């Protein structure tokens, strides 16, 4: 079932990218996507796809806000003379489990300026993050866990 | 722009040739790469440089009415780029194999079969 959804999604992307919104084109896209999926036999596809739309929208706004805020902070840092950072690498224990969730969380953290995911431990329990402003390690860990991780869990969980 | 381009091409040739004359086998390959860029740009310049008029027939028309860039050199360069890639890929792997088999990356040490008695 999830594969079917993924297939539909791919077919839709095809139509979008080609810019021809016609049944025939959708069909071509569907066939092509089917072939692609058959070729790669991609394992997992997002589940509960439609139920998550609302959370996703909320998440996008949250993320956009974070992004702009962080960007401005770093921009200011770059522009003003001298250095005022307290950087370091912090280990953040993870509650989320699946590959997709971890990847998404890691990427979101990285996308936010000032933070950079360095790696995930081999047993997927800890995320190592480099950050530019670490006033307090625990506070930083908490902000990540309660901000991004919780919302990722909501969206993908 | 042709004047600037000609200097770019000349510079590419000069540095490509200089690198090829080094004894390090990796530099040789880098030189070859530069040389192929130079040759491509040379052909490109030979088609005369045109800004912002790619050789595409706009939707709805059957032929191009405005003056466009010469499509032929572009096709030639595309061929040359791809051929160059094939050759370079071979050359890159060749140097690796050379180092593995001969144990050196110094070209001057690769003359056991090619030295006057």
């Amino acid at each position: 079932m999830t594969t079917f959804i993924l297939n539909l999604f791919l077919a839709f992307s095809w139509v979008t990218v080609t810019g021809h919104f016609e049944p025939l084109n959708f069909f071509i896209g569907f066939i092509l996507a089917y072939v692609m999926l058959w070729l790669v036999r991609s394992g997992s596809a997002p589940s509960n796809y439609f139920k998550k739309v609302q959370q996703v929208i909320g998440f996008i706004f949250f993320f956009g806000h974070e992004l702009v805020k962080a960007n401005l902070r770093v921009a200011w840092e770059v522009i003003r003379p001298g250095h005022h950072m307290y950087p370091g690498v912090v280990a953040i224990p993870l509650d989320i489990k699946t590959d997709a969730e971890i990847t998404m969380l890691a990427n979101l953290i990285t996308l936010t300026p000032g933070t950079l995911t360095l790696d995930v431990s081999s047993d997927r329990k800890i995320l190592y993050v480099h950050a530019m402003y670490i006033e307090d390690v625990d506070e930083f860990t908490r902000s990540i866990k309660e901000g991004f991780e919780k919302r990722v869990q909501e969206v993908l969980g | 722009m042709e004047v600037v381009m000609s200097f770019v091409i000349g510079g590419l040739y000069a540095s490509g040739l200089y690198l090829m004359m080094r004894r390090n086998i990796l530099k040789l390959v880098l030189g070859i790469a530069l040389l192929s860029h130079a040759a491509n740009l040379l052909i490109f310049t030979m088609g005369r440089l045109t800004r912002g008029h790619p050789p595409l027939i706009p939707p709805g028309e059957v032929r191009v009415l405005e003056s466009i860039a010469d499509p032929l050199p572009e096709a030639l360069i595309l061929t040359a780029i791809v051929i160059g890639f094939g050759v370079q890929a071979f050359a890159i792997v060749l140097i690796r194999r050379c180092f593995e088999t001969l144990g050196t990356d110094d070209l001057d040490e690769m003359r056991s079969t090619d030295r006057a008695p």
Partner: protein
Amino acid sequence: MNLVLLFPILIPFATAVACLLAWKQRHVQRVLSITGAVLLQASGFLLLVSVWQSGIRAVQMGNWPAPFGITLVSDLFSAIMIVMAGLTGVTVLVYSLADMDTGRESFGYHPLMHILLMGVCGAFITGDVFNLYVWFEVMLIASFVLLGLGGEKAQLEGTVKYVTLNLMSSALFLAAVGIMYGAVGTLNMADLARHMGTVKQPGLVTTLATLFLLAFGIKAAIFPLFFWLPASYPTPPAPIAAIFAGLLTKVGIYALIRVFTLLFVQDLEYTHALLLVLAGLTMISGILGALVQNELRRILSFVLVSHIGFMIMGLGIFTHLAITASVFYIVHDVIVKTGLFLVGGVVRAERGTYEMSSLGGLYSSNPWLSALFLLPALSVGGIPPLSGFWGKLVLVKAGMETGQYLIVATALIVALLSLLVMMKMWADAFWRDSPGSAAGGSVVSANPVSFESRLVLFCPIGVLGLLTLAAGIFAEPVLTVCSRAADQLLNTEEYIRAVLGGIP
């Protein structure tokens, strides 16, 4: 219809693809490969007959009229070259049945050989200067891979030099094509020939000629650009070396002859005089190199270089007789050089080495091999009535008729030195006792060659030996064909008409 022009490209291509399909089945590949080569040879003869009967043939790829698409065109010269390509292909591939290791055969030896042939034939038959570049590259990359196939130490050393210097040549060629397009605005050779005179920039055509001379000169291994040849040809297995020596260098010469008869005939005093000087230097330098070598294939490689000078000499003299001589000499050289390198392979198969110091005694132990060596060797030395004699005779005659005594003298001296080199080789490898037996032990071959495989090895060499004899004894028909080829080369009108048709 015009398929006959297409076969020389399509047959090797199809064979290569078929061999790729049969990747894991070595024996199927062998059958396919020999079949393909024989078909190529047959198509070459077909083309030769066709051109002989109905003049220069041309066909427009994609049905696009001449200067816009790519034209395949074959005059007699091209047809002769394709016949020679087929001949080399057949002989070398038959030879490889008995002297090619399983490793190389299962790593694409057969498809590579056919792609090499495809590139060579494409170069011979195309009428478009950029397409010529493409075929050169096809041929080159196939030769790169064949040269390095097996990855032995010596092979790799040779390949590095071969690749580098040939890439220089390609870059030069590509630049020359680009500049020519920039100056003339077309790529079709016939069209170029028509418009070459309209280039307004003073001296640009001569400069272009020099560029082409150098680009093809590297490929043809003329002085002082021949380093890659002795550096690499002695390194791969015998069949590969044989097809390189027999066929590959001729492509450069073919290209030189093509452009210097069709495109660059405006500034003969500069370009063709330069050709003549380089021809003389090539002859001397090559043969001097051969004199001091002491490994069988290295000697042959330098001799090869030296004799390239002869082919260029005819082009430099640039009379009808001289061009005839060049064409004839190419035919001769293909036959004997392929033969000699294959003989070298048998020597190596028998004795396990190419080092002259370890060879000897083959005259008493392998009389047939000795005879098969002597034929091409004497032909190289210009002993009549073998084909090499006629080549030199006609060249010398042409040179004398135009009063180019210096180059004639050079050619004669080099001919003598070639004989010296070949006979030294004969004396060292065949005549004298093997160094082993002097110590009292009898000659034991390193890995005894079975009778069946010896038969397979000797067949192609025998054919080549008989061909050099036949081309000498029946020189008249061969020379007549070459003479007509020279006619067509010198009368560019016919070529242009065949390609461009009614276009004024």
